[in-house]
C-alpha cells in the first residue's frame, strides 16, 4: 500500500506564504503572552499550593468557590474565591490552586483539603485518603531554582544540537534547524498562552521532546539534501531542496502519522495528569513536521542563495 505516490510539489515556491502563516500564528501567541505578562507558570515554578480532591458526586465549581471565600485556618482568615478552582478530569473531582503565602499556617495544604472535605458532608468519600487525589506545596525558593534549571536545560539542549549539526552538516543547516525549533517552541508556548494552559515541569519535558522530534524530522530532510547535492551539482539549489523534500515526503508523513496516533491516544486515554503533556506533544508533532519543510529548509536555501550571490 502507498499513500504518497511520487510527488513534485514546489515547496520552496510556497515559502512566502508559509512565512506569513507562521508569522501570523507566532504573533498571535506573542501578543497573548505580552497581554498575560508571560506564560502562565505552574506552582513548580512560581511556588504555591495545588490540591486536587475527589467528591462522590458532580460538584459545582461556583459552590466550591463560595465555600473557599471564607476559610478559617488556625484563626487566620483567607479568601480563596478568586483563585484558580476547576474540575480535574471529571465533574466529580476539583483542583484548587493557591499562591504562596509568606506566613501561612503549618501544613497549609492539608488544612485546605480538610476545609474542602468538611464543607460538603455527604458528597465526600467516607475515608479521607480516598478524598485526596494529590496535593503539592512548593516554596518560592524551589520554584525560582526550577525556572533557572528549565531555562538552562533548554539553552544547553539548543547549544549542543547546534554544535552537533554544525559538525555533521554545515553551519547554515544548524541555523535553519535552530530557527525551526525556536518556531516550534514559540508556537506551542503561544497556543498554551492563548488557551490559558499552564507551563509545568512535564510541559518543559514535552518542549524538549518536541525539540528532539522536530529535529529528527528536519535532519532526515537535510540528510537528503546533503545526498542530492553530491549527486547533482548542476541543478539550482532550491530545486535540489525541493526534490529532497519530495523524496522524503512519504516517510515524513508516515512517521508523523504514527507519532501523531500515539500522542493522540495518550491525550485521549492517558489520564488527567499527562493530559496537557500529551496536548503539547500533539501540537509539537504537527508544528514540527510543518517547520522542517516550511521553515528549516527555506532558511537553508535563503542562506545558500545569499552566500553564493
Amino acid at each position, binding site marked *: *500500500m502507498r*499513500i504518497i505516490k511520487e510527488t513534485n510539489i514546489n515547496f520552496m515556491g510556497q515559502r512566502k506564504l508559509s512565512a506569513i502563516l507562521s508569522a501570523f500564528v507566532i504573533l498571535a501567541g506573542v501578543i497573548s503572552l505580552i497581554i498575560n505578562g508571560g506564560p502562565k507558570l505552574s506552582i513548580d515554578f512560581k511556588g504555591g499550593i495545588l490540591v*486536587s480532591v*475527589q467528591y462522590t458526586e458532580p460538584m459545582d465549581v461556583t459552590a466550591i468557590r463560595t465555600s473557599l471565600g471564607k*476559610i*478559617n485556618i*488556625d*484563626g*487566620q*482568615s*483567607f*479568601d480563596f474565591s478568586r483563585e484558580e478552582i476547576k474540575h480535574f478530569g471529571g465533574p466529580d473531582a476539583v483542583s484548587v490552586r493557591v499562591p504562596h503565602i509568606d506566613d501561612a499556617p503549618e*501544613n497549609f495544604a492539608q488544612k485546605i483539603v480538610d476545609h474542602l472535605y468538611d464543607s460538603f458532608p455527604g458528597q465526600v468519600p467516607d475515608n479521607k*485518603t480516598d478524598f*485526596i*487525589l*494529590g496535593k*503539592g*506545596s*512548593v*516554596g518560592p*525558593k*524551589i520554584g*525560582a531554582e526550577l525556572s533557572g*534549571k528549565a531555562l538552562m*536545560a533548554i539553552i544547553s*539542549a539548543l547549544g*549542543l*544540537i547546534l554544535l*552537533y549539526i554544525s559538525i*555533521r552538516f554545515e553551519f547554515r543547516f544548524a541555523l535553519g534547524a535552530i530557527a525551526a525549533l525556536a518556531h516550534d517552541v514559540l508556537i506551542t508556548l503561544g497556543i498554551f498562552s492563548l488557551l490559558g494552559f499552564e507551563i509545568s*515541569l*512535564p510541559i518543559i*519535558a514535552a518542549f524538549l*521532546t518536541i525539540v*528532539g*522530534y522536530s*529535529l*529528527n*524530522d528536519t*535532519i*532526515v530532510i537535510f*540528510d537528503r539534501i546533503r545526498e542530492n547535492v553530491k549527486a547533482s551539482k548542476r541543478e539550482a539549489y532550491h530545486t535540489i531542496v525541493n526534490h529532497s523534500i519530495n523524496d*522524503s515526503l512519504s516517510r515524513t508523513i508516515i*512517521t508523523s*502519522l*504514527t*507519532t501523531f*496516533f*500515539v500522542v493522540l*491516544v*495518550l491525550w485521549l*486515554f*492517558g*489520564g488527567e*495528569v*499527562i493530559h496537557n*503533556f*500529551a496536548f503539547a*506533544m500533539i501540537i509539537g508533532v504537527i508544528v514540527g513536521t510543518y517547520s522542517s519543510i516550511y521553515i528549516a529548509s527555506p532558511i537553508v536555501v535563503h542562506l545558500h542563495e545569499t552566500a553564493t550571490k
Partner: protein
Amino acid sequence: MNSKLAPRFLIIGLVLIWAIWAIWPTFQYQRLSDAEKEMLREEGKLAQIESRTIKQGLDLKGGMYIVLEVDLPTLMETLAENKDGKFNRSIASVRNQLKRIPEANFFTLFTTTSGENNLKLSRYYYDYGSNNSDIIVALQDEAEDAINRVLEILVNRVDQFGVAEPTIQKQGNQRIIVELAGVQDSERARTLLESTALLEFFIVKDINTTNQLMVRIDQVLKGDESIAAVTKTTIDKKSNEFQESDDQTISVSELFGETEGSEASSDSAVVDENIFAERPFSAMLRNLGQTIGVPEKNVYAVKKILERPEVQEKLAAVGGMFLFSNKAEEYPLVDGTLEMMYSLFLVEDAAELTGGVVEEAKANLGSQGSTSAGQPIVNLTMNSDGARKWSIVTGSNVGRQVALVLDKKVHMAPNIREKISGGSTLIEGFADINEAKDIAIVLRAGALPAPVDIIEERVIGPSLGADSVRSGTLSIIIGLGLVLVFMIIYYRFSGLIADFALIWNIVLVLAVLASLQATLTLPGIAGLILTVGMSIDANVIIFERIREELRKGKTPKAAVKSGYDRALTTIIDANMTTVIAALVLWQFGTGPIKGFATVLFWGILISMFTAIFVTRTIFNSLTSRKGFTKLSI
C-alpha cells in the same frame, strides 16, 4: 540458514535470553498477591526479587515526596557567641534579602552583609578562624556537617516510622529529599520529619503565676484603644483586608478569629462580648484544669496578642514565655459539644536541659507489679552530666510540670513526682503505645544540629496513582496496537518484521530499566509510548528507501542492501539529536522528568539495535534463500 548470518543470530539470541532473564522478576512480582508477598517477606526472599524489578514512582503508587532544607540563618545564630545588636541586625538583613531573592546563596549574602556592616565575624565565631573569609569557609563546612547529621537522624526516624522502602537522600549540600511510598497520613509523617529543632526541657510555671500574668495582660490590653474600639465596631471586615492591616492594630476579625461578617455573633460566638471588654486576652482562652486551652479558631489572634510589645514586657517581667502544644486535641465543652483546642503553657524563659543529654528513650508497656503495669510508658536515660542537672531540676520542682519541647512546641508536660537522681526517668500518661512511641522518637532524636524547613511537599493519593497506571497501560496498548496494525497494512510482510522489532524494542527497554533498577514514573510511561512512535521511524526510513531502490529496478536483495546502507547515516543523525535532548533532560530534571529522560534515552538507543540490526538480519536471511524473487513491502 546462511552461515554468514550465524553470528548475528547468535547475538540476537543472547540479547533475547538476557532480556527475558532481566524482566522475569518484574513479571513474577506483578503476579504476586499481597498475601504471597507477605509470605515471601517472612521467608526473606522478597527483597531479593524486589531488587531486580522495575520500581514504580510515587506518582504511580501514591505517597509523599518532601524536600527539607536546613535553615541556615538560624543555624548561624545558634553557632554564634556574644551576639549583639549589630550581629542580630545583620542576620535579620540577610533573612530579608533571602525572602526577596529566594535563590540567592546564604553565605554570599552573609559575606557581603558582614562587609557592609563592618561585622568582625571573629568576635562571634572565634573558634572558627581569625578573619572573615576563613570563618565563612569553616561555617560552610559546619553547615554541610549539620545536614549530614540531620540526614542520619532522619534515616533513623523514618525507619521507626515503618514505611516500606523509604528513600532519603541528600541533594546539594543543604537539602534532604524524603520519599515515603504509600504514606497517606501526611500529618504524622510531617510531624516526625519536621520535629527537627532543638529538644529542650522547660519547667512550667505554676497556676498562680500564670493566672496573675493573664490578669495583667488583660489589663494592659483593656487600656488599649485599638482593642477597646473593637468591641463596638460591627464586624464587617473582609478577610483579605486584615492581612494587609498593620500588626500594631489588630482588627476585630483578627481578634475574633472569625470573619463571617455579622453572622459571627449568632454562630456560637467564640468570645462573649461582655467578658471580652473586661478581659480581652483570657476571654479567648479556656480553662482545661491544669492547662490553658486555645480553641483552634483563636490561635491566630492569641499569637498576635502575644507578639505585642506591651505583652512581651509583662512576660519578661515574670521571666516566662508562652508555648503552644504541638497539636490540637478535642475537649468537651460545658454544653456537651466537642472543640479542637491547642494547649498553652507558661514556662520559664530558659530551658533547664537540652536534648543533647538524652542517651536512650524507649516506649514500653509498664512491667508487672509496678504502678504502671500494662500502661504505655517511656523510659528515658540521660548521660552523667544530664543526670546530675536533672536531679537538681527535678529535686527543686517536685509537683510541677516539666514540658518536653521540640521546635518550640510542647509535646508533653508530665508532672514531676519526685527527685530523679539515677538519670533514668519513667514517663507515663499516654493514650496508647503509638503515642508513647512517637514521644520516644522525639526524645531519642535529641538535639538536631540544625532546624530544617519543609520547602516542597507533594502527596499523590493512591487512587490517582492507580488511575495513572490504568490509563498509562491502556494508552500503551492502544497506541502500540494502532502502530502495529498500520505497519502491517502499509508494508505487509515487511511491516510484520518491523512490528516484531518494535515489540522487542519495548521488551528490551523494560529489561534495561529492570536491571538498572530504574523507577518507572508516569512521564516514563509517556516516554515509552513516544518511543513506540519514534522508533518505528527507523523502519519507515529504511522501507521507503528500499521501495525507492525497487522502483529503480534493483533486485530485492540489492534493494535491501542499498536501502539499509543509505538509511543508516540518516537514522543515526536524526536519533542523535533526540538522544541529546534526553541527556539534557536527565541532567537537569528531577524525579518524574528523570524517569522520562531515562526511558527516552534507552528507547532510542535500543531502537537502533532492533530496527536496524534485528530487522536487517531477518531480511538478509529471507533474501538469501533460494527461489526468493519478490519482497513483500
